[in-house]
């Protein structure tokens, strides 16, 4: 999930402060650094995925006679734990990261090793991964990160039952979306479920609209901090379309009270009180546990985000969470082993199949057949095809931007939804945020 909980932030702040205060030599650090003779791979703690990584490491160790070791941390602690150990003797050799802005910050500090030479030796590494996902592991044209988990794009979920009741089809274009909204409203159905009490759900609408209207380059300009990027006409246009949707009643009148964390939006959608829900593919697993009947009865549909007539963006482009990445630490003393490990395991059948068994959709080419043989094949194949055919995969903005800017972004976007802020004011306020 791309939500940045304040718990993780607070813990993170706390952690970094520890190191600032104690010069980075607390007992915990030494322990985590562990045996430096071993090649350390740091990753997030995840009960479903860690065993797969462990078995791939065991296989590598057995074959190579080297000593690679997996060290995991809970989400809350990981990000800053990493940030404070980099550059110290306790730094890992291979580290898990989020790609995009998160990875770029290590690259800027000279802490990540470019992997282009490795890729030249093992062409598999670039040819086997889906290009749009691989791209998020690049900084300034060089590959620093390799995808190591499944893709989580944002898709438009549709409740087929409700669409049948209102005698409409899932929208393929923005104009169709507006027609569908009106038709559903006429039937007394909330057209779109939106957990508007949390800004990150609203952000998905802006991410996709800008992508469709202006193309993926517009957000790249924003990330790069280009002058006037926020004031670009396509940003304004996207915000106007958002306000237009709100005024039309596309999200109902009480969306701002709906909360994602207590199933507010997912339940609204599952019970047929709302017809559509724009959400990351993780919502599928949530519905599977919370509302299994929705999937069992075949009512859960999903489509790509509608195209925008006359928009500059490719309607095949996606936004969301591309993947997580492994990178090699620049001053690792075991660089060769670390790189060999990545080359040997990330694209191995055992690792990929392990991910698929754990319910992930890996960002690897040619796995359609394997996906089809597993549970929920229809949905995983849809997700896979969507990403495989996407020319670009834009990372969730609140992950790609700095914490301070994303905090301001989410607050101001809520105001745009509530009509407390005009699009131009939003653009001006964001241009000032840093």
């Amino acid at each position, binding site marked *: 999930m791309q939500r940045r909980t*304040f718990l993780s*932030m*607070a813990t*993170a*702040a706390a952690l*970094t*402060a520890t190191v*600032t205060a104690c010069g980075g030599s607390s007992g915990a650090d030494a322990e985590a650094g562990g045996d430096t003779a071993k090649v350390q791979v740091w990753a997030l703690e995840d009960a479903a995925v860690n065993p797969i990584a462990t078995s791939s490491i065991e296989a590598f160790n057995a074959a190579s006679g080297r000593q690679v070791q997996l060290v995991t941390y809970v989400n809350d602690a990981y990000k*800053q734990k990493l*940030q*404070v150990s980099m550059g110290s003797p306790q730094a890992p050799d291979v580290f898990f990261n989020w790609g995009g802005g998160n990875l770029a910050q290590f690259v800027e500090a000279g802490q990540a090793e470019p992997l282009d030479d490795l890729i030249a030796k093992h062409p598999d590494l670039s040819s086997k991964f889906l290009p749009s996902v691989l791209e998020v592991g690049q900084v300034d044209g060089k590959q620093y990160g390799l995808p190591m988990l499944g893709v989580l794009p944002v898709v438009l979920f549709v409740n087929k039952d409700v669409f049948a009741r209102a005698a409409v089809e899932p929208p393929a274009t923005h104009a169709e979306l507006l027609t569908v909204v009106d038709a559903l409203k006429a039937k007394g159905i909330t057209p779109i479920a939106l957990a*508007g*009490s*949390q*800004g990150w759900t609203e952000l998905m609408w802006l991410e996709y609209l800008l992508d469709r209207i202006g193309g993926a380059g517009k957000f790249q300009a924003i990330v790069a901090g280009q002058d006037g990027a926020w004031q670009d006409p396509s940003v304004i246009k996207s915000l106007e379309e958002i306000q237009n949707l709100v005024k039309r009643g596309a999200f*109902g*009148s*009480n*969306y*701002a*009270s*709906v*909360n994602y*964390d*207590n199933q*507010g939006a997912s*339940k*609204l959608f599952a019970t047929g*009180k709302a017809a559509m829900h724009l959400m990351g593919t993780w919502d599928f697993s949530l519905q599977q546990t919370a509302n299994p009947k929705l999937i069992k009865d075949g009512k859960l549909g999903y489509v790509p985000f509608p195209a925008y007539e006359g928009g500059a963006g490719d309607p095949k482009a996606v936004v969301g969470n591309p993947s997580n990445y492994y990178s090699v630490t620049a001053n690792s003393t075991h660089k060769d082993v670390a790189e060999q490990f990545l080359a040997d395991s990330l694209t191995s059948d055992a690792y990929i199949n392990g991910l698929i068994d754990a319910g992930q959709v890996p960002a690897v080419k040619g796995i359609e057949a394997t996906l089809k043989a597993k549970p929920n094949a229809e949905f995983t194949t849809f997700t896979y095809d969507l990403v495989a055919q996407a020319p670009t995969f834009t990372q969730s903005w609140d992950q790609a931007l700095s*914490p*301070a800017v994303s*905090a*301001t972004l989410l*607050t101001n976007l*809520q*105001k745009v*939804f*509530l009509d*407390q*802020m005009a699009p131009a004011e939003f653009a001006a*306020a964001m241009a000032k945020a840093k």
Partner: protein
Amino acid sequence: MTTAAHRARPGFVWAAPAVLYFAALGILPVGGVVYLSFTRWNGLGDPQWIGTANWSALAGDPEIGGSIGRTVLLTVVSWLLQTPLALLIGVWAAGPQRNRAVLSTLFFLPLLLSSAAIALMFVSLLDPNFGLAADFGRYLGAPDGNFLGDPDKALYVIASVIAWQFVPFHTLLYQSATRQIPASLYEAAAIDGATGVRQFFAITLPQLRNTIVASSVLMLVGSLTYFEMILLTTKGGPGTSTRVLPLHMYLKGFDGFEMGYASALAVLLVLVGTLLSVVVVRLTGYHRMASDREGA
């Protein structure tokens, strides 16, 4: 003064542990915050001295005025909501009937729930489609159950949730204070022909004056700490409709990682808190160290 009397006076050493303790964990940190307010620091690396830049940034912060205004509004609304409720229910519950004792046990229940629990409960209850808000919204001016998401209502809803949590405590204060009022007063009033409402205003209310002050002080002192409840319900939203000053400071520091600027806000918060303390102390006469009786 005899030597014996002098010896029986406790020396400063009795107060020293508390003073030192508070200095180390209460006053020293305030000094730290003042220092940080002159630095730029994102939590990583060392704080960088930048002079008064954070302080001049205060003036340009679009949320600062609003968040101060909302803090004051929340405090005032909370007081207006809780005091009459707690007073009336407390007086009623002080009655001798057995059922009132049982009922007052029920009244007390919200105080047993932590703020985190209450926040989670109300977020669920106020879900506009599946919570109680859906069923009862139309009686409360929100037919679509839009309470926490309505910028015009959210702060008042928060004030009501806070009241739900704290009215029981203040009710207990009033209940026990009312029980201390001598019956003779009411008997005398009855002889004079004063009944019901007049007795309430002529006897009960004046007799509870000190309790009203004590309970108001606790409300005021607590008002700057409500932020946890807001953090867990609306996180200051929708937009910035419930972003009070303590929350604004917290979000700047721990969501946006602008520790330097957040520290400037924190110093502001400490100043507001100190000012509030001074007002409270003046109003209540808490600064008198000894009993009135001692002087007599």
